């Protein structure tokens, strides 16, 4: 057997191996994708249900906002800054008692969503605040002149005008959450990132690791693409 043939076989062999190892892990990989989906879904739900009102409240209560309340603002702003600065791993561990109190368990994919949700809420709240600040002052003034209540100001004026920015920042938060969720294996959350680390990195199955990373890159780009597309579609500000 010549050296060339051996090399050729080597390459084929490696490809076969790659295929084999990937198909061997197909089930688990699909499961880990589902887990990431659950974690993202839950934390984004929290971002929308809690982060959006929280960011809106920050916008309203800040110093030059429509309804300045220094105390409220300091509190919310503090929350956002603290969640942003504590090392995420420690944050996850510190939350274990809380998660257990809330869900009855502190391990597994659902439980892993709790710390992710805290972070998603904080990040999205900050983005919402910033996005609303970009709405022209005149829009607030218009709402005032039409006798709108605070609730109406928010739902009828600010959100419709800021909607494309709100979608775009939710996209950014989603992508950050993909990256945060990588750590959630620590409390049994699973997910794609954890899969890549455990099945690829720790057991030296590099094909699995690279395949998984590729999937993540594709997923992130798809999320970004979808977000950008949606936000353009609903933006009528300039054509």
């Amino acid at each position, binding site marked *: 057997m010549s050296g060339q043939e051996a090399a050729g076989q080597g390459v084929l062999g490696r490809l076969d191996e790659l295929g084999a190892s990937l198909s061997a892990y197909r089930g688990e990989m699909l499961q880990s994708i589902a887990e990431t989906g659950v974690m993202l879904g839950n934390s984004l739900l929290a971002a929308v249900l809690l982060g959006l009102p929280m960011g809106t409240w920050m916008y309203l209560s800040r110093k030059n906002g429509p309804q300045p309340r220094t105390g409220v603002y300091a509190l919310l702003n503090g929350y956002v800054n603290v969640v942003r600065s504590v090392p995420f791993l420690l944050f996850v561990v510190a939350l274990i008692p809380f998660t257990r109190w809330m869900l009855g368990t502190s391990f597994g994919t659902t439980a892993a969503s709790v710390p992710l949700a805290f972070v998603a809420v904080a990040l999205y709240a900050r983005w919402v605040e910033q996005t609303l600040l970009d709405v022209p002052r005149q829009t607030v*003034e218009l709402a005032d002149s*039409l*006798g709108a209540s605070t609730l109406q100001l928010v739902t009828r004026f600010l959100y419709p005008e800021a909607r*494309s920015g709100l979608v775009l920042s939710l996209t950014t938060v989603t992508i950050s959450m993909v990256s945060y969720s990588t750590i959630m294996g620590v409390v049994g959350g699973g997910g794609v990132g954890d899969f890549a680390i455990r099945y690829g990195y720790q057991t030296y199955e590099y094909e699995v690791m690279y395949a998984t990373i590729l999937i993540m890159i594709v997923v992130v780009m798809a999320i970004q693409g979808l977000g950008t597309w949606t936000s353009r579609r609903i*933006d009528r*500000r300039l054509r």
Partner: protein
Amino acid sequence: MIELQQVTKSYRSRGTGRRGGEVHALRGIDLTIRDEEMFGVVGESGSGKSSLLRLINHLEAPTSGRVLVDGVDLARLSPRARRAQRRRIGMVFQQFNLLANKTAFDNVALPLRLQRRRERERVMQMLDFVNMADRAHQHPSLLSGGEKQRVAIARALVTDPGILLCDEPTSALDDHHTEEVMDILGQVRRELRTTIVLVSHELDVVKASCDRAAVLERGRLTAVTDVVAPPPREAYSSYAERAQRYLA
């Protein structure tokens, strides 16, 4: 009827410490605007025109003195009652202030929605009044300046307010569009009998359409004049023709 009694308005200056201090935007203004009149407010930049207007619907509170609209002092109302009162005063802004993500129709429908009213008819009627019925479903970015301002006027009128406040409603517009908008305001006054307060630095505009006008100078009211209407303009078929005749 709108009455300003000894009204003063000062702002804390926006500057940093060194240049900080009070800006006296309005000083001791006494003024009565009658029902159903078109009342002009003229003055240089910074003379206090916008401040005066914004006091009327209480977007700003007076520093001292009282502002009465139909005998009611907005400063003394609860926030809720004040909102209700504001809904009876329409406002047209210099920069139109249309919501970019809503169609012309939805922009006009907005004040009704705030009162939980859904009156398609009424909205279309107003759009028709300002001659914009056929553009009802376009977004503002596709409209010209004059068209935008007409939509803004329809929005201000849709709740049938007794008073219409206009802050430089034509200064973002060219001559052509200015005429368009002023024609509509004239019509509002004739047909809807709305009291109109018109702030402008363009003397031509005020002269052409107001009954009386207040002249402001650095926060003080220097005069309230009865306006003498100018001779009607010649009618031209196009801007280009008019330009040519005017320049030569």
